[in-house]
């Protein structure tokens, strides 16, 4: 481990910290129900939901490395495509 003088770090070093390990529950997107509206992506306080293209439609995809499991996406989803499930630690 490197312990710098004055706890100085360079930009982007924090990417090493996968802060999603806080989460005890996580959203699960049902891609069949998802209408690709992007509402969840707009509301996500961690900015870790993005829309990805699958065949002809867009669906929401969660970056679990940073998702804290707050559940806002589940609350705002107009298509009720996002459920909150217990996180299974492998």
């Amino acid at each position: 481990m490197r312990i710098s003088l004055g706890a100085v770090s360079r930009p982007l070093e924090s990417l090493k910290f996968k802060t999603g390990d806080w989460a005890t529950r996580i959203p699960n997107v049902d891609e069949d129900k998802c209408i690709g509206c992007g509402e969840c992506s707009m509301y996500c306080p961690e900015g870790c939901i993005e829309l990805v293209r699958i065949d002809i439609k867009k669906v929401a995809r969660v970056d679990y490395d940073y998702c804290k499991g707050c559940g806002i996406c589940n609350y705002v989803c107009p298509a009720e495509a996002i459920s909150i499930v217990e996180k299974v630690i492998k």
Partner: protein
Amino acid sequence: MIKVVRGFYAVAYAVKLCKPDVICAYPITPQTEIVENLAEMYANGELERCSYITAESEFEAASILVGASATGARTFTATCSQGLILMAEVLLNAAGMRLPILIVNTNRALSAPLSIWNDLQDSLLLRDAGIIQMYVENNQEVHELIPQAYKIAEKVMFPFMICMDGFKLTHAYEPIDLLDQEFVDSFLPEYDPPIKLTTKNPLTFGSYAPPHCYMEFRYRMHNDMLKAKKVMEDVFKEWAEIRRDWGGLVEYKEGKTVLISMGSLVEIVKDVAEELNLGYLKIRAFRPFPYDEIRRILGDCENVIIFDRAISVGYEGVITIDVKNALYGCSPDVYSFIVGLGGRDVPKDLIVRCVEKVLDRKVKPGYYFEGLKEFEEVIY
């Protein structure tokens, strides 16, 4: 060049000779005139390539200096009492970020009740902060300590706080043998930190440290502070060779009974020790604490008498706590007298009376408030 000046000027003039890049402060009695003097020098164009920034609080002043110091600027501020504790949050960060900011603290009591007068409560509250703390006896010492402080701080990368007694030193006129520019220039190298913030090299100082690494940062900081003792001794020795010997981390005269104090009170304590043929110990550096020196000097003596001007409410005098801890397992009886809180006068005969009480075995080892008046406790 010997000039009769006030303590304020002795500080400001020495700071000017060290060519600081950024000065930032907020006025507070009894510190204000230090930065007023510097502001005047700045207005007169005597402080070349220096920015003098006025702040709207001590918290802001310290914050500006954290930013400035991180870019590799030599920085200065002065404060005391409520101002110092308002700065505290920022100063602890500066310590963790290892920024060598120089702070002159003109010791003043803490509220409540409100007091602008002198004791050591304010700086001693910050003893655990990771800031080097030195206490001076007179204005000549503070004047000469400032270039040394910059040299030490910039080598060991810790904030450095010079504590001088408010009013007793700051407002006192004394003939001061002022340093000259050439001398300071040859003694104090330019500040060139190993790491600094520039627009081309963005950095985070004091970044987030989760439990898996926080402890290592603090351990390194503690070790570096202990190692700073050697650097301090070396700089003091260098100064002693080229200018004047002020002692090391402590200054002392051995004896069976040793009187201990810090700050301007040391002058009276030395006088009393001289007259009664006793030893004395002046603690110059309180952090890092001169543990080895204290054990060596006091380990075999009979009585240790401490004059404390700060109390840890609910325990005892602050210096006493640390000295007793250093003496654990040694034999001397430790007597502590808490005197001079909130600027209460400490005349020489009070010190003599305390010492006589100990020598005549009228008191047992422990702590006592001296100089208290009789009073009646009422609601209002």
